[in-house]
């Protein structure tokens, strides 16, 4: 009983936190970050309870307000939803811990309270998106996420973020237009907005309207690919992710682009049946797009001189991995994609946060100005190096496991090119991360000379993320049980 109610309670609880935050900021400004941490910490414990409960008792559904589907809005507590909710609350919690020191420094004026409200709002939006079992509710949550992520980019202030945020907003609006159109087509086709009922109806009558279902799916996938930054629809991503404050970048790059991939999973495996998908050749198109994303993202990253832009292009490449896992169309590919969502969320937030500390010390985002900073900030730069090694795919780190799973899935399903692609992309990652590490550690110290780490709260947050990355890499079984469960339920 309680378990069924938990996913909905999580979202509402976080949303209430977001709405009382501005008042709180007015009367008691010092308490904003502790309150945010409290809300996210409680979310984290609720998410663990949800995951364990779902694992032992099977997926649950809950109808908001007692209105049963097809009319009411269904909230799903299945494997993928609970894993994502756990991941979101975990990353958000440690990002806010990191932000205790940096938010005040990076944001102009006294915007801490509003920023905290935004952080809670975007977590509520992402959680609402992954647990939603209703197409229109998904659309509303997608809008909540995309508007608040534009605001997260804007929060830094200054004139540099404005064009990036506007570009992001325009592209996100086009994306959501496509998604809404796709939902409209699905509604014409099935007469339902609830995913379960729509899927049942598609099973019966979807074959009679092959073109309409193809159009609906194409609109949905285009919209989600724009929002998720899949190459070649990624061009808003590097600007938005590199100009934002470091905590915002960590959230945008680590979590926001992933929740759209989760929506794609739901649409592919829960709404449309696999025969229908294979008949549309969409898997081939996605395969080509994701291979292009992996190669092009890495090649663009090679020529960047700005550290945060380099990390943003690396995100473009990593989104390719996730969609690659979806496009091989097997349960193992799905597992690889989910594992990569988790691993990339951990390592990319770690990279952005540690880069934020290094950049604020050096005073510039250019890689050139970070010369030798690893000698004066060995801990922070070491965390950066750890994240980079995980990206390259060194064994014993989580990045290796997801590459291994994806390569295995490709081999199993007859896409023999996936394995060499993984090796090649690992080499490309090495080609742009290793020079940065060389600049950080093995060059003459330029800029600050005294040995001093960043804020203590920042170091703690980076340490926690690094430890979880290593745990996931050394004993992947802790995560794989849950991921296998989630993937097999999605596969149906």
């Amino acid at each position, binding site marked *: 009983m309680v378990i069924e109610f938990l996913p909905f309670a999580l979202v509402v609880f976080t949303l209430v936190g977001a709405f009382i935050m501005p008042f709180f900021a007015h009367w008691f400004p010092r308490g904003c970050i502790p309150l945010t941490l409290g809300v996210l910490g409680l979310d984290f414990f609720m998410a663990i309870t949800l995951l364990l409960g779902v694992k032992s008792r099977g997926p649950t559904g809950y109808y908001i307000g007692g209105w049963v589907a097809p009319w009411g809005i269904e909230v799903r507590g299945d494997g993928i939803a609970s894993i994502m909710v756990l991941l979101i609350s975990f990353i958000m919690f440690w990002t806010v811990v990191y932000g205790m020191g940096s938010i005040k420094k990076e944001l102009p004026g006294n915007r801490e309270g509003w920023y905290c409200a935004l952080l809670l709002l975007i977590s509520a939006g992402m959680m609402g998106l992954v647990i939603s079992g209703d197409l229109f509710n998904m659309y509303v949550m997608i809008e909540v996420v995309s508007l608040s992520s534009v605001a997260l980019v804007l929060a830094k202030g200054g004139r540099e973020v*404005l064009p990036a945020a506007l570009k992001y907003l325009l592209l996100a609006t086009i994306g959501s237009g496509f998604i809404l159109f796709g939902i409209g087509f699905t509604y014409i086709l099935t007469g339902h907005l609830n995913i379960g009922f729509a899927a049942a109806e598609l099973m019966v009558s979807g074959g009679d309207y092959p073109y309409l279902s193809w159009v609906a799916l194409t609109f949905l996938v285009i919209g989600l690919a724009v929002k998720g930054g899949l190459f070649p629809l990624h061009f808003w991503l590097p600007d938005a992710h590199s100009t934002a404050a470091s905590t915002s970048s960590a959230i945008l790059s680590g979590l926001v682009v992933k929740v759209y991939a989760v929506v794609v999973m739901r649409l592919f495996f829960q709404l449309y049946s696999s025969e229908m998908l294979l008949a549309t050749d969409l898997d081939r198109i996605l395969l080509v797009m994701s291979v292009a994303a992996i190669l092009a993202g890495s090649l663009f990253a090679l020529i960047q001189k700005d550290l945060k832009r380099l990390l943003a292009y690396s995100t473009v490449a990593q989104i390719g991995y996730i969609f690659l896992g979806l496009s091989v169309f097997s349960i193992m590919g799905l597992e690889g994609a989910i594992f990569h969502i988790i691993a990339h969320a951990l390592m990319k937030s770690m990279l952005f946060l540690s880069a934020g500390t290094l950049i604020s010390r050096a005073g510039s985002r250019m890689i050139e100005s970070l010369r030798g900073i690893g000698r004066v900030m060995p801990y922070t730069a070491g965390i950066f190096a750890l994240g980079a090694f995980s990206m390259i795919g060194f064994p014993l780190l989580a990045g290796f496991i997801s590459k291994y799973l994806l390569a295995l899935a490709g081999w199993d399903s007859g896409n023999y090119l996936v394995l060499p692609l993984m090796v090649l992309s690992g080499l490309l990652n090495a080609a742009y991360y290793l020079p940065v590490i060389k600049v950080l550690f093995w060059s003459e110290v330029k800029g600050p000379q005294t040995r001093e780490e960043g804020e203590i709260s920042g170091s703690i947050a980076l340490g926690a993320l690094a430890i979880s990355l290593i745990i996931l890499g050394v004993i992947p079984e802790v995560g794989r049980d849950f991921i296998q469960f989630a993937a097999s339920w999605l596969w149906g």
Partner: protein
Amino acid sequence: MELSIFGANYPYIFSILLFSLGWLIIFTQANLLKKVIGINIMESGIFLFFLAVGDIAGGSPPIYVEGAEQVYVNPLPSALILTGIVVSFSITALALSIIIKIYQSYRTIYMPELLRIME
């Protein structure tokens, strides 16, 4: 294919046209305000589409009248579009406020000029 298909389904064709016109404007216009107008045209296309989905020829508003045998229009798409309009309104408001900020700090809302200043 018979031409009558187009005649019977003209709201759908118009909505697709409006939608495409909208994002074409967003991509091709250099003036930032025109891009916001493009957003609104695009969203109007979607709204028209949803209203056309819900409409039934000869249907009346879905209000219960005692003893009357009536065909009702599907109210659900209209209700959805109410949410859509609110979303589109907030996107427009956010975009316009960003454009005001851009004008204040760059003194232009013309895209090529803006790119030149940012270099």
